[in-house]
């Protein structure tokens, strides 16, 4: 008989991309809510000190960090490696994209994270296939070991169907009616909170749309989680 041991994993999700308005904050927010719904609240960092949207839309669940200061760098990198089972989520402001990658390389952060049993998952955002191709290759070359997941955010780029198959790992975020997002924002509701019949969105249709949308996205997150858990599996001949 063989026992299969699925080890725990502590992911560090980094929503990144060199351009503004590519959907990074939405991805970070989705991951934050997914983790919060499935376990202990994650440690989240919002790297846009000028307009901390992730912090604003999650009722302060993300800490605002200014990467241009040494104190901010220490807060972020040491926070990411802090001991504990909570997932870590980083919403990387496009203005800090290059400095962040430079720091990661200088500090050999990816190796240190791997040594401490963290899994680095880079969620790469962009608006065209060509651009994503280039940046995915750069990320693979610069940050190692790490998994790069290309995010197809259909609010930003058109679904290119099979073209996205060229990427080893990708994540599709289908469109959600902008009115629902606006309503959530006005009511200061979280995404999962918005589906609650009692305290969520008043419209049953809107709640239903939101639930369907979250189900599609979260199902993919579960796949990512499962892939990592199985990747860390050890087979123990009994």
């Amino acid at each position, binding site marked *: 008989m063989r026992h299969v041991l699925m080890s725990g994993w502590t992911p560090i999700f980094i929503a990144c991309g060199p351009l503004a308005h590519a959907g990074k904050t939405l991805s970070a927010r989705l991951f934050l809510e997914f983790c919060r719904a499935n376990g202990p609240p994650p440690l989240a960092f919002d790297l846009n000190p000028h307009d901390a949207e992730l912090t604003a839309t999650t009722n302060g669940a993300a800490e605002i960090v200014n990467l241009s200061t*040494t104190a901010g760098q*220490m807060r972020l*990198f*040491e926070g990411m490696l802090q001991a504990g089972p909570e997932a870590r989520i980083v919403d990387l402001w496009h203005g800090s994209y290059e400095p962040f990658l430079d720091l990661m390389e*200088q500090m*050999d952060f990816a190796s*240190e994270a791997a040594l401490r049993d963290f899994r680095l998952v880079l969620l790469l955002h962009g608006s065209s296939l060509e651009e994503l191709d280039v940046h995915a290759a750069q990320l693979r070359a610069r940050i190692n070991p790490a998994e790069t997941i290309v995010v197809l955010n259909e609010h930003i780029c058109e679904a290119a169907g099979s073209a996205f198959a060229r990427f080893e790992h990708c994540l599709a975020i289908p469109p959600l009616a902008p009115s629902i997002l606006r309503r959530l924002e006005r009511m200061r509701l979280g995404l999962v909170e918005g589906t609650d019949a009692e305290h969520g969105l008043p419209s049953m249709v809107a709640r239903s749309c939101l639930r369907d949308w979250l189900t599609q996205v979260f199902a993919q997150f579960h796949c990512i989680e499962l892939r990592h858990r199985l990747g860390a599996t050890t087979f123990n001949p009994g």
Partner: protein
Amino acid sequence: MKHTVILVGADKGGVGKTTTCRSLLDYLNERSVLPRAFDTEAPRGTLQRFHPDISEIVDLTQTTGQMRIVDTLSRTDVKASVIDVCAGQMVRTLAALRDMGFLEAVAEKRFNFIILHVLGPSIASLDEIAETAPFTDDAHYFLVKNKMNDTTFFDWSPTTSKAYFGKVKCAGEITIPKLNEMAYEQVELAGTSFSTFVADRTRDGEEAGYSFVLRGYVRTWLRAVCAEFDRVHFHDIMTARSAKA
């Protein structure tokens, strides 16, 4: 391998002599050359605080101090002696080395002699180059530009720069890049060598728990410094068996 004496000095204070010595000691260890060091800042000794195991404080103005260094060159198992010359004593130390016959022994190729002249951001500092010239004929003389305090070394004034650097007969220029201020201060507080700090160890070899970010800065900086020493073939000069490299 002949014994190499490396003199790190400047007549101005605060130009980074001790930082240069500290990075050099890490470089030598990295290149598997076991060094010993002499801190001439008697009786205090800044260098000794960071490298207590391999350094000692000597008073180079006294004959006993000079004997402590030069008379042990042939006897010691280590192959490099790094001397951190305190401010204002560089030319005087070179004159003393000449008077005791050490420079003659260097000319006879019995020892390697490397001078690291650390420059400061002043014309007075640049004037020292001419003052040291009479002593550097048989030495490998390097000018060290320490960028720790954002000095430009008159790069913005080609005339000034050429006047001082254009004529000097030296083996090369070594640039010590700037290190993040917080990282520098953290190593100061730790009171260890740069490499011990990077390895996250205390002086006693215990795990220290220093900041990962600051260690990263020091690691990157130390790599750049070592690359600078390699660029000017520092290690090759030390390991060369005969004529000057």
